[in-house]
């Protein structure tokens, strides 16, 4: 598939700080891309630049072959859903959904037809005459989604749409957004600071830090193969070891690198010293400092060779009877020792 939306060399400064520092991104039609990153990394600003709500200091935005960077927001054919919903409180649900159609001069019957269609999609047909304040947060966000889809935008931007909602509603709405996005084959950019949200939703994840995209790839790739320490720390509770740490723990390490990342679930805890060692496995001795049960997983905090490691074991009743303070053996496949580049490389 060809590129549908392309961001080229987007730059934005705010005073002396680079908010966006040469951002490049290509998105295919129908793809859902998440911009993931800590607050202040520039992801929301990037979204506002694409929408035309913020000015850029340089760069171009090509949508469907046309440069839209100089156009005002209303001519960009871009839909947006805000964290605060931004529904019009003086209009009913139906009037909210029809607002964009009305601004485009579409006649009443056609507006009605379209709004009924979308009310059905977001399952709010019964609430068509309610005012936004009478709806729950999740319902309001569904109205906002319907409102932005009503005008058939070329790209849909979602700016942390789930952050203001309860955990349960968030999960449901997340699945619903993904289903609707697939149904309409909607090219979508989803901004979030929640890595779990990004991993479950996206076709592709772009992890941002300090105004740059530091790594992009499929959820699978970005989770299992972090390239830098920042990515490793942000994407999960990776243990990041310096080369000295790794040497002290495992005696020798095949490949040289600045630092290494180890996923908590890839370390295996053994309590006997006489278990047979598979080739390529490294072993270290340690002591359990604390443990907590997260549900399906038990998380151990283990100290070994002056290094603190987080280790997850499946809570399936077959785990070792370990208590705080008890000594353990840690086993790790050398292949699970991920090599990290120097920061920013």
């Amino acid at each position, binding site marked *: 598939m060809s590129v549908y939306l392309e961001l080229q060399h987007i730059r934005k400064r705010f005073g002396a700080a680079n908010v966006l520092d040469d951002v490049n991104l290509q998105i295919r039609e129908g793809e859902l891309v998440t911009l993931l990153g800590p607050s202040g990394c520039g992801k929301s600003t990037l979204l506002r630049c694409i*929408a*035309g*709500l913020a000015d850029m200091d340089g760069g171009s935005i090509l949508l469907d072959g046309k440069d839209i960077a100089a156009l*005002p*927001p*209303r001519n*960009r054919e*871009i*839909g*947006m859903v*805000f964290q*605060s919903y*931004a*529904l*019009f*409180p*003086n*209009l009913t649900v139906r009037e909210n959904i029809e*607002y*964009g159609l009305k*601004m*485009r001069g579409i006649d009443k019957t056609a507006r009605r037809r379209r709004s009924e269609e979308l009310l059905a999609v977001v399952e709010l047909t019964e609430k068509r005459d309610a*005012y936004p*304040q*009478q709806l729950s947060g999740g319902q309001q966000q569904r109205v*906002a989604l319907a*409102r*932005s889809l009503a*005008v058939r935008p070329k790209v849909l931007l979602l700016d942390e749409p789930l952050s203001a909602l309860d955990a349960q509603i968030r999960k449901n709405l997340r699945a619903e957004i993904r289903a609707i996005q697939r149904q309409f084959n909607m090219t979508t950019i989803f901004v979030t600071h929640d890595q779990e949200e990004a991993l479950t939703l996206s076709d592709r994840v772009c992890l941002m830090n300090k105004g740059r995209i530091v790594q992009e790839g499929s959820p699978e790739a970005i989770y299992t193969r972090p390239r830098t320490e920042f990515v490793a720390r942000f994407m999960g509770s990776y243990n990041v070891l310096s080369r000295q740490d790794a040497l002290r723990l495992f005696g020798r390490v095949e490949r040289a690198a600045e630092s290494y990342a180890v996923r908590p679930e890839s370390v295996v805890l053994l309590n006997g010293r006489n278990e047979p060692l598979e080739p390529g496995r490294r072993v270290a001795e340690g002591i359990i400092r604390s443990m907590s049960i997260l549900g399906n997983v038990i998380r151990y905090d283990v100290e070994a060779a002056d290094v603190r490691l987080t280790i997850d074991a499946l809570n399936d009743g077959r785990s070792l009877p370990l208590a705080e303070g008890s000594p353990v053996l840690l086993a790790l496949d050398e292949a699970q020792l991920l090599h990290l580049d120097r920061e920013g490389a």
Partner: protein
Amino acid sequence: MDAPIKRTGAAPRALMLLLMIYLLLPLMATCIYAFARDWQTTVLPERWTLEWFGGMFKDLRFMESLWNSLYLCLIAVAFSLLVMLPAVFVITVYMPRLESLMKGLVVLPYAVPGVVAAVGLIRAYSSGPLNIAGTAYILLGAYFVIVLPYMYQGIRNSLLTVSAGPLLAAAELLGAGRMRAFASVVLPNIWPGVLVSALLSFSVLFGEFALTNMLVGGQIQTIQVYLYHRMGESGHLASAIAITYFVFILLLSALLMKLGQKVNGGLKR
């Protein structure tokens, strides 16, 4: 006590009662005095009359001063609304960095005492190109400055409560021009709040005396200036005027509170 639900203790109640008496007694006395004919040796007046009210309403100067106050305040508030609504909107939504400047500017009227302001204004505007001292124009200008804080705060708070920024962004992305977006999704939502600050400004101006008297007291009589002049003539008449004025402000305040409830209720729902 055998009451199952004890709401307030006796001491606070007594204190409240005392406070109410303290506050309301002068008002009661004024009210009674305004309706009294003979009131010398008895606790309550011996004979009642509507004469003072009749005389007041028959006095052309009273009606004129009431009318003066009414239209001057209305024009000043309308003018302030016309200027401040777009100005505060632009500053709050598009230039938030100017807000600190505005905040400082807007409390200046509090910092300058009325008399000082009046003397300064008369000096500045009694010669030169803008020779408007003693006219209604200088008064309107002064009124505009007096209500500045109320209008600024009221409009700004309304804009922030309805998060005008995101609303406007949403409307623009849906294809509305800025003016149309403002008229269709911002104005209807801030209107109740703006109306409250306009009414508040109106009642503040209606009760303004010091600045008015010094600026235009000789030329234009507002209700306050009139009240001041007639105070010495007859206590009964002054009481009647005071009571009429009080009832007027009471009605205005009731309207204000009603509107305020509507604003809050609308947001809570």
